[in-house]
């Protein structure tokens, strides 16, 4: 049970964002810009950063949600699984690999990112704005993961929940639907 009285039927982050619309507005806006705004990183690349950081923070709700979203965007599950469990061998570009390594260092603490990491990312073609956004996406998920787990919000175990959520995040992004969310599980 969550530590605070969130609306029933809104698992994970959703119930928390609905609990306090004042603070959720800028959080959603930031997420929409970073994960869905114009960028030279694909939406799948950015969802992989979100997934990897959530996985390192062991946040089951966020890892499941963003894994499912990246899977849907990529059309396979292999890439997400290899990024999580065996990053150095993952079938992704060298640039994305270094950006994920930087994201992993941000997860442990910002000071872990070295000049060498940045130089290697640039060598593989990363731009200033890609570096900026990688660090900020990783930092943002350090917020989300702590928010979700710190208030002990409900984490569904049913994979179909995450498939439905992923579809919503691919189709409409992180913008709040007018009138709020459909409750889970669906009422009979």
């Amino acid at each position: 049970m969550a530590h605070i009285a969130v609306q029933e039927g809104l698992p994970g982050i959703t119930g928390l964002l609905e609990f306090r619309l004042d603070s959720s507005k800028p959080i959603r806006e930031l997420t929409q810009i970073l994960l869905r705004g114009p960028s030279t990183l694909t939406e799948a690349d950015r969802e992989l950063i979100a997934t990897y950081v959530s996985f390192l923070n062991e946040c089951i709700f966020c890892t499941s949600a963003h894994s499912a979203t990246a899977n849907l965007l990529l059309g396979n599950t292999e890439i997400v699984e290899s990024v999580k469990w065996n990053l150095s061998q993952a079938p992704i570009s060298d640039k994305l690999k270094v950006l994920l390594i930087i994201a992993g260092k941000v997860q442990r603490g910002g000071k872990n990112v070295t000049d060498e990491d940045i130089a290697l990312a640039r060598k593989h073609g990363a731009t200033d704005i890609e570096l900026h956004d990688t660090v900020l996406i990783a930092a943002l998920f350090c917020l989300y993961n702590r928010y979700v787990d710190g208030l002990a919000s409900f984490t569904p175990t049913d994979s179909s929940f995450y498939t439905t959520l992923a579809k919503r995040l691919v189709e409409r992004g992180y913008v709040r639907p007018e009138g709020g969310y459909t409750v889970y599980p669906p009422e009979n």
Partner: protein
Amino acid sequence: MAHIPVPENMPGIRGLMAFRPETAHPLNLLAEQLLQAPSTLSKGERELIATYVSRRNHCKYCASTHGAIAKHLLGDAGTTIESVLGNLQDAAVSDKMKALLTIAGQVQISGKEVTTESVAARKHGSTDIEIHDTVLIAAAFCMFNRYVDGLGTYAPDDQNIYDMIGKQRAQTGYLTPPMPIPLS
């Protein structure tokens, strides 16, 4: 030197916000909402949470800046924040604030550290919104601290600079343009 090109006279998060105004906008709105908007926690109390988490994350720029803002808001020459950063259990704050700062310290490590027992902060009179906001302020500073340090930004040594920034933010909040910082 920062890992990306930022204006020379803009230390810490200021340079990053100048680099990417699109993301600066919601980041500033979030800080304003969490730290300045009407709340049953005073602005000073909320800045204590921000400073405490930033110090635990060893983020010099954020800890110095928010420590200075707390000082100006509390009007106490910095004694309260120093006591919180010293030994929390003996700090010059209410039992309720001690319980909320304990939760914030747990969030700084990981969300999973927060236990049902620590949320017994309630027995000192905390409301659900206060517990929510404490967790979210702590989580937000785990983001801000990583953003500032992950991009290798510059943090001045001169305490007078933080004092200037602290005074401005205490008086005008987070939505006013940053004042120029004299180059050392």
